[in-house]
């Protein structure tokens, strides 16, 4: 089981698998997430990200293995786990004929949250002015913010987000990321799946790469980039020609040294490996 660097583990996953006939959607996955940590799960479509979230939120039974949230079994103690968690779904599954406020009021009642929580959340996601409008009149970005507000209605210890910024314009995506970061900084644990490497890099304390149902790497973005990423440098010479050199390649390093000795180098920009490179190295193709 891959352990977090510090803090008490609030999510503990051990040998979790879900098979549909011969298809191993999730195959013997183990990891743990510390309290207050943001963990990102990255992978291609069909890699098993959503199935993992479905099992952790008690909406699908594991074929084998298990998971604990706050020490409670997600299958056997599902009813006790429910109030501790919440989820931002991949689909914008809101009640479109109801207003934004009515949507939040419904879930506040279901979770037994105080009525004042609704106004507080509307304010937090910037929807106070649109609260009395029916959701079908909302833009995609507004709906996504309302989805996030709905998932925060019970102030969950563990917040799951399935592709929270998918299809959003950069400004709306930035707003959503801000709300997630704010919730995590208040001590909650965040578990998110995403297709966006920059998002994972910016938000996540640790990142897990999932390929064909198995975790192929799990660590901090920085460590992953150092371990699997390629260090390169872009060299601009006096003759205005530009060259990409791999710093870990002996031949390229000698070339760079020769240019330096000859005084031909105008500028050198070193490039750290990206999570995208790491993913390509590990999964064989880009996201």
């Amino acid at each position: 089981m891959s352990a977090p660097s510090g803090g008490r583990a609030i999510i503990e996953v051990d040998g979790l698998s879900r098979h549909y006939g011969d298809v191993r959607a999730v195959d013997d996955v183990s990891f743990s997430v510390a309290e207050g940590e943001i963990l990102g799960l990255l992978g291609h479509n069909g890699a098993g990200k959503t199935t993992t979230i479905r099992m952790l939120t008690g909406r699908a039974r594991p074929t084998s293995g298990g998971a604990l949230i706050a020490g409670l079994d997600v299958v056997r103690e599902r009813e006790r786990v429910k109030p501790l968690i919440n989820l931002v779904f991949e689909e914008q599954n809101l009640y479109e004929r109801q207003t934004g406020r009515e949507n939040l009021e419904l879930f506040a009642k279901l979770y037994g949250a105080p009525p004042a929580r609704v106004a507080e959340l509307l304010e937090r996601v910037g929807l106070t002015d649109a609260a009395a409008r029916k959701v079908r009149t909302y833009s995609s970005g507004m709906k996504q913010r309302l989805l996030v507000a709905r998932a925060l209605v019970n102030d969950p210890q563990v917040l799951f987000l399935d592709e929270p910024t998918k299809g959003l314009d950069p400004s709306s995506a930035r707003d959503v990321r801000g709300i997630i970061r704010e919730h995590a900084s208040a001590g909650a644990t965040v578990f998110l799946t995403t297709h966006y490497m920059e998002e994972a890099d910016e938000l996540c304390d640790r990142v897990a790469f999932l390929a064909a149902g198995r975790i192929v790497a799990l660590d901090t973005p920085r460590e992953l980039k150092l371990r699997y990423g390629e260090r390169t440098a872009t060299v601009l010479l006096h003759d205005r020609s530009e060259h990409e050199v791999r710093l870990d390649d002996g031949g390229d390093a000698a070339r760079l040294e020769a240019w330096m000795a000859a005084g031909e180098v105008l500028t050198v920009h070193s490039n750290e490996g990206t999570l995208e490179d790491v993913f390509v190295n590990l999964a064989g193709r880009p996201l």
Partner: protein
Amino acid sequence: MKGARVNAIYRKDLRDALRDSRLIVALLMPLLIGLLYSFMFKDDTKPTAKLGVVASTATRLPAALEAATKAAVQLKVQAFADQAALTQQVRDKNVDVGLIVPSGFDEALTGGAPPRLTVILPASPSFGGDYVAAMLDRVTQSLAGQAPAATVTRVMLPAAAGTSDSAFVALGARKAFVLVAVILMLAMIAVYALPAVLTEETEKRTVEALTLIASDAEVIVAKSLFGLTYCVISVPLMLAITRVAPENVALFVVDIVLTSVTLVGLGLLLGGLMRTQTQLNTWSTVALIPLMAPAIAIQLPLPGWAETLVSVLPTAQTMRLGVNALAGRQLFGAEWLSVAIILGWAVVGYGLVWWRLSRQETA
């Protein structure tokens, strides 16, 4: 199970239903059909006919016709000043049959001279109009003092209890068809309104958000309450707008409540099976047939095997109990059996819903 959660989902569904044009139409359509039946049919079991007469001198003919036809038709006679006015009224179907009686008609008949009598009928005569016109020969012969060729004795058998005849005789066509409209409304709730709510939750995956905290049972109970509320509001509304009052209110309430509970169970089952609104639109029409057919078939003469087949369906028993309740008499016997059959369907419906839920929870 938490009552507060059930209540929150139930209230959301009610509020949503008021904003959902599909559900409003599902309620309005049977109401309008009931209203239409109420205008089309009368409480009287005998058909009525209006006889228009133009006669320049006094004649016994209208009174004699009224007497001769009273066993089969309720005849109303109206005098007109001239032929043109009467013809127009017949054409407009305000009058079923018109008679132009010449001056000195009665005297000519008794004197043995054959007077000319003109009968005006519309292009498609009503049963009453046709019947009155057909009786004219016999009545004029009688007025002329001629003995009939044979003495005809008409024996009308009373309707046998438990048959469609007895229902119509006891209730009249209007009440019988309003009862059919009530069953149509309950069936529409079962096969369309309630499944539409469930299917939309499944299709848009809002039900997954609900069950993140609520249990499947809490969601199902809330939906059942929603369906029952729909029934409880719509049936009295139908009775009010059609001015139909059951003679045996207690039996009618038992009948409607049992049927509502049963059909809501079947609606939950149907809603659980449908994944999309398109699927529901296709299958709800098919599902409506076995629910509506018995309500109509009970009023038709059926061969024994067909009657047995129909009588095992819940709405056939709803119709039987409903007829008894509206008439205030036991026209259909074995009411306990009707209750048992409806309850049996409730057990089947809810049992299957429960079975599906338990399978879903272990999936």
